[in-house]
């Protein structure tokens, strides 16, 4: 038997994480939203993950976040725009009268009251204790009712066979999928790929990710300082994704 004590595990884990950062990406210091949750511990509702997007720092010409997400989660398409999945997209919003426009990324908004979860017949659409909305693809039957219910068009249906998936992001034909807040990274104490890329690759820092329940987190501080809004706030879904500047 091969059981590690929890303490050894944790030591190994932290050491391995530190080592791999040093060895594989010298010079890059990853911003950490929080420490990785201890191995073997479930997500809890003490944490509520949130994302704040400052549209003033976001540019219509930039889609670094989209590319980063696609690379991280491997949702490359087949050049069929109607059926290819899009976990995150840049939307341009134009005021019809003045012509003023802004650009912002839209992905799963990780609602506290997610309509997709309410309508799902099998419970495959689910909200984790820490507020991350996911599809449990093991019991998804591909009925697409969640896609009918989502006000943000955040979900995609996998319309054809998938090969060469990323190990941390299994995907397969006939099920529904969407942004996971990069749950595999977050559980590991890392930032979602889009947030990391926005800061490190694009140098914009338009996205702040963190724990809304922790008053000392960057996101909680920003949210308490600036007026923020949510897409279709009228629906009262209490999304985890918030915006500034529209």
């Amino acid at each position: 038997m091969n059981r590690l004590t929890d303490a050894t595990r944790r030591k190994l884990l932290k050491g391995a994480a530190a080592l791999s950062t040093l060895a594989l990406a010298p010079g890059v210091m990853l911003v950490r939203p929080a420490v990785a949750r201890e191995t073997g511990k479930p997500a809890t509702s003490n944490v509520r993950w949130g994302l704040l997007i400052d549209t003033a720092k976001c540019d219509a010409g930039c889609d670094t976040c989209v590319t980063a997400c696609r690379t991280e989660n491997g949702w490359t398409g087949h050049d069929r725009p109607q059926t290819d999945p899009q976990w995150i997209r840049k939307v341009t919003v134009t005021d019809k009268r003045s012509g003023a426009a802004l650009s912002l990324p839209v992905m799963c908004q990780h609602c506290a009251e997610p309509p997709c979860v309410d309508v799902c017949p099998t419970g495959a659409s689910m909200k984790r204790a820490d507020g991350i909305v996911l599809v449990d693809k093991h019991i998804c039957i591909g009925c697409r009712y969640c896609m009918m219910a989502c006000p943000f068009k955040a979900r995609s249906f996998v319309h054809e066979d998938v090969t060469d998936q990323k190990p941390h992001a299994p995907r397969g034909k006939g099920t529904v999928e969407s942004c996971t807040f990069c749950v595999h990274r977050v559980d590991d104490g890392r930032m979602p790929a889009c947030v990391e890329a926005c800061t490190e690759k694009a140098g914009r820092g338009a996205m702040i990710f963190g724990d809304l329940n922790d008053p000392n987190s960057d996101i909680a501080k920003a949210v308490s300082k600036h007026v923020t809004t949510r897409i279709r706030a009228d629906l009262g879904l209490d999304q985890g994704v918030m915006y500034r500047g529209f």
Partner: protein
Amino acid sequence: MTSKPILQVIDGDSAGYFTLVGWFALFVLAGLGAAWYMEHNGHFVTGMSNQIVWGTPHVFAVFLIVAASGALNVASMASVFNKSAYKPLAPLSALLALALLAGGLAVLVLDLGRPDRLIVAMTTYNFKSIFAWNIYLYTGFFFIVGVYLWLMMERRMVRYSKPAGLFAFIWRLALTTGTGSIFGFLVARQAYDAAIMAPLFIVMSFSFGLAIFLLVLMASYHWTGRPLGDYVLRRLGKLLGVFAAAVLYFTTVQHLTNLYASEHHGVEGFILAGGSVYTALFWVGQVIIGGIIPLAILFHPVTAGSRSWIGLASALVIIGGLAQVYVIIIGGQAFPLLLFPGMEESSSFFDGQVATYAPSLPEVMLGVSGVALALILVAVAIKILPFLPQTLDDASIDPHFKAEPAEADASDEEEEDAAGVGETAEATPGT
């Protein structure tokens, strides 16, 4: 006086019968093939997309499910509302209801992304989901109508058929409410977010179900050469007229209430005046072909009494019904979601754009196979079990028959609650 039961199996040994069943079987097989093709390749081979997530299969499935509960009308009128004239027809009505529901559900299931996980859908439930409730409503419907059917056809049990009929009637109202609520609860979509969806679906079910029933009744009597009097047909025809009018009325209310809220002006303008295929389907398909023309036929003194006209009106109601469900399901999705009301949106994911959709052949084949499945079930069932009355000529049906069919609306009261089909036969003058 003869004690021979009035219900009798059809012979079903003619070349015509086998040709008919053969055709239905062919369509069912084609539908299975289409489903296999869609699952094997993935849904990208259909017209459906991430914009239009429910397509033609859902139009047929919803139509059939809605019609199923409506097909039970005739039985309900006999058992619950004591209309004695319909008693001999009640078993056929219940059978048709079961068959239509089976056809609709088969289509729905075969369109799933993972039909192989049907067992998951049957064993894992999220009780907040209307879909999950519907699974119960559908299974319950099979069970309750099945029992009801048995009580009606088993002579010793016939006296229990009335409470069973009442229960089935209530259940079917719940079922259609559930089906309508699948759409009514979608707050995000401008076209659906309305409580009127549930009652609208109920009147739709009355109308579509009765239209299908009329056609099945006429066809089976015509092909088996059994006598079918005008009395039944005229009464059912009149009823169909009332239901078709009710559908028009509820549709009007649906759109008027939506027009009242300015936030829904966009989608209303799109459907009612957008010039798209949905506008045409709405006005020409649903309103004119499925509403006004059948109404004219069914209430005009010249055509109202003619069975070919009644048959035509039923067919038109069905066509209009399909158009209506198409407009609701696909037109409702074609109108873009408003993420930023009042603003213009654009993206690589078709935000702010009216979605395009064209039904693909496999989808249509799958949808039609649901209809074929329902019909083949009926055709086989009436051969195995006695569902069809031997005769429905005026003499055996019309309580006031006096050689010259009287205006027969006056009194329909039926005193013998317990009287079942067999007893009716004995009580019928002239048998």
